[in-house]
């Protein structure tokens, strides 16, 4: 069957078997491998993408259910102007380790901040409750998301400049 949807602002289309999940559609038909297969049953959040503004597990949804809808994946988060503030803070603070859960965590956090620009620490923790990470203990992720929320509230700029080659330092 044909599935056509908007992915990161572009119309994308493919012929797929009807049982194809949105995750398989993105990874294997569109070669967008940023969304990861961690459990394939909606427990770990590694496949999180944003569908019409809501964070969803792409593994639990058929591609056909996303037909005609708007999907943001990790590959579409940075703009020409640079990284999304969440990506930037995760990079600056070393919030990720192996990186595997990162795309899902970042998109869950984006969906949270889009809906609630002033989350409490507990609201951040709750928003990440569906994203498993085995490396980091979540500490720097939670702190980073809080930092972004504070910055975004005080400076209404959606994106910060990209990491330039000259500014690799931190701390």
């Amino acid at each position, binding site marked *: 069957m044909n599935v056509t949807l908007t992915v990161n602002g572009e119309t994308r289309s493919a012929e797929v078997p009807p049982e194809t999940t949105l995750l398989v559609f993105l990874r294997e038909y569109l070669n967008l491998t940023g969304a990861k297969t961690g459990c394939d049953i909606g427990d770990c959040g590694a496949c999180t993408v944003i569908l019409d503004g809501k964070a969803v597990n792409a593994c639990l949804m058929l591609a056909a259910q996303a037909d005609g809808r708007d999907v943001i994946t990790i590959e579409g988060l940075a703009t020409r102007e640079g990284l999304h503030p969440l990506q930037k803070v995760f990079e600056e603070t*070393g919030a990720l380790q192996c990186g595997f859960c990162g795309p899902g965590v970042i998109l869950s956090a984006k969906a949270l901040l889009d809906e609630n620009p002033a989350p409490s620490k*507990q609201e951040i923790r709750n928003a990440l409750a569906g994203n498993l990470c085995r490396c980091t*203990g979540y500490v720097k992720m939670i702190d980073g998301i809080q930092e972004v929320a504070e910055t975004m509230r005080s400076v209404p700029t959606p994106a910060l400049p990209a990491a330039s080659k000259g500014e690799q330092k931190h701390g």
Partner: protein
Amino acid sequence: MSATGIGASVRRKEDFRFVTGRGQYTADIARPGQAHLYFVRSTHAHAKILRIHAGHASRMPGVIAVLTGEDFAAGKLGSLVCGWLIHSKDGTPMKMAPHPALPVDRVRHVGEPVVAVIAERADQARDAAEAISIDYEELPSVVDPAKAQAPDAPQIHEVAPNNTIYQWQLGDPAATEAAFARAASVTAIDLVNNRLIPNAMETRAAVAEYEPGTEQFTLWNTSQNPHVARLVLSAFVGIAPEHRLRVIAPDVGGGFGSKIFIYPEELVALWAAKTVRRPVKWTSERSEAFVADAHGRDHVTRAELAFDAEGKILGLKVKTIANLGAFMSTFSSSVPTYLYATLLSGQYDIPAIFCEVDAVYTNTVPVDAYRGAGRPEATFVVERLMEVSARRLGVDPAELRRKNFVKNFPHQTPVIMNYDAGDYAASLDKALALADYAGFPQRKREAAGRGKLRGIGLSAYIEACGIAPSQAVGSLGAGVGLWESAEVRVNPTGTVEVLTGSHSHGQGHETTFAQLVSHRLGIPIDNIAVVHGDTDKVQFGMGTYGSRSGAVGMSAISKALDKVETKAKKVAAHLMEASEADIVFEDGKFTVAGTDKAVTFGEVALNAYIAHKFSGAELEPGLKEGAFYDPVNFTFPAGCHVCEVEIDPETGRTDVVNFTAVDDFGNVINPMIVEGQVHGGIVQGIGQALMEACVYDESGQLVTGSYNDYRMPRAGDFPPLVVDTTVTPCPSNPLGIKGCGEAGAIAAPAAVMNAVTDALGTEDIAMPATPLAVWTVLQRQAHREAAE
């Protein structure tokens, strides 16, 4: 300290690709024309294979091949092996049973791969696998290590009577008995160190390719040590000679030990790729990972600690049964022996120690190294004993520890290890201050006023990292040396590639290793690339585990940099027409002592390749040096963790309300990265203590085989962690570093359980202290009190 050198919290070079979703993990790799592999796995813990019905499946859409244990046996490939030979106390070698990648006639644990199905698409392979039925004759099984040696227990392997792999011992039994004979008091405890399922977020995967024209295999694999994988697959299994097998471990999504080992699945993928003449891809499903990745821990222990009348330790006796599962995994034999019993002295001056370990087969998933590997088990024994002893003797647990600390270094323990440096009182003091230990009684009273039970517990751990001096481990049975290799290639334009045998799967080596080079050569960190994880690029390496990459891997780089510097000075001497002895290298510049003559590192690099200023007869062109570094000792990270919990007696729920960690990792290369490593380790350790229950039922079925049943730590579970360090530089390597990757997982379980038992007022609770377990203890106490 330079902005990108040693000691700076430099932003991780690998993170740009990770935060933008451009990491390249094995499952992200697609080879042209690849087929997909799926396994039919045993549904029984122990059974004879009578017949495999695969005729229908082999004719299903897309199916290319259905391969069984008989097909594999016909290929005359070798067995998977355990690479560390342990001898029993009677001198006999360990009883290692054959471990074919696919069994011919018997299955020995639920999840064992039995049939391999290769199809055009992954879903077709899975559908065909589901259509295969296997006739089994069920056999009785045993899963509990404490029951495995019983006379009536089912025999799992012919080579191992009573399912006993070895009966090993360490220490001096006579001296220990004598110490106990003169003891004023003895503390005895029974402990279970619960089995854990590693659960790296990236499941294991393999993409195997065979090029018939050159007879060359390539394997992309989720490996922590691609060269070791190649060595085992080549030398023991015989899939291909080493020079015709390239193993690539690209971005790897966490390992924690579980990706050290060489498993049946990647071997079958290689064999199948040659058999069907197509690239073959296998990606483990999460449900498979639960029953196919090597588990961790699973010890049953009786331990006794003898004190004199003043509270000084006289001796320690330990008897442990270690479950190694249904087959001996790659390094399984070393974990409950040389990585465990050698750490039983803890941070303490213990004159006599005797430890006996029986390793047993059971009908469970193989058990091998998992974050900490033996050292968490040792710490749990020692630190639970210290806390229980303090309670029994009526003394402050912190002071009992302080009284018994090793204070002079080097310190030879009775169990092989020679501690080179440390200051255990310093980390204890700092941890107690940060945790406001003195204020705890007040907080306990306040909690009691709210109907909550509050407890505090310490864990003054030690670990042996920087694994390991080759000569030492060789004498203890290791099949390989545990050095590390490095190569530093300076390009004509002055940029540098560092090739390392270490492998990064979350540790940030691309950054910390580059920091060392930036520090030493005075060049920007952006001009340095760290290359790892490819046997065609890196000559050899032992990989990453046991917190060894800093202490051993970076020391190898440091040694190679010494050679680069020596050669570069020769080039600089020619350039400036000076004597080599007068050349000084500092901050990226070569100068002639006592003059204002100077050339930059970049100029030297270029001239090393142009070679116009010297003849090839006097100095070889080029600037590239390699080194193998073999450590002279283990390193000994140590520290003190303090956990404070609050228990709700109504529900049995335990909340960790404060957690403080003070670690001595020696010199620190990147504090930001180290802090992250400690956070992750602590959370894994708290997971073991409070959440992660790996449960087999009596028939050998894993009943905690999903995230619904196996409770992983989640973002909402913990308060912020207080993490700090003390520093005694390690004298055993050139950088003074000890390793930080496992400390949290080693220290935390004892700290948490000491706090839980303090809150409950009973020692009678095992890990994990789930709400049900805690509630059950509280109910039992209430009944007892009511009866009195």
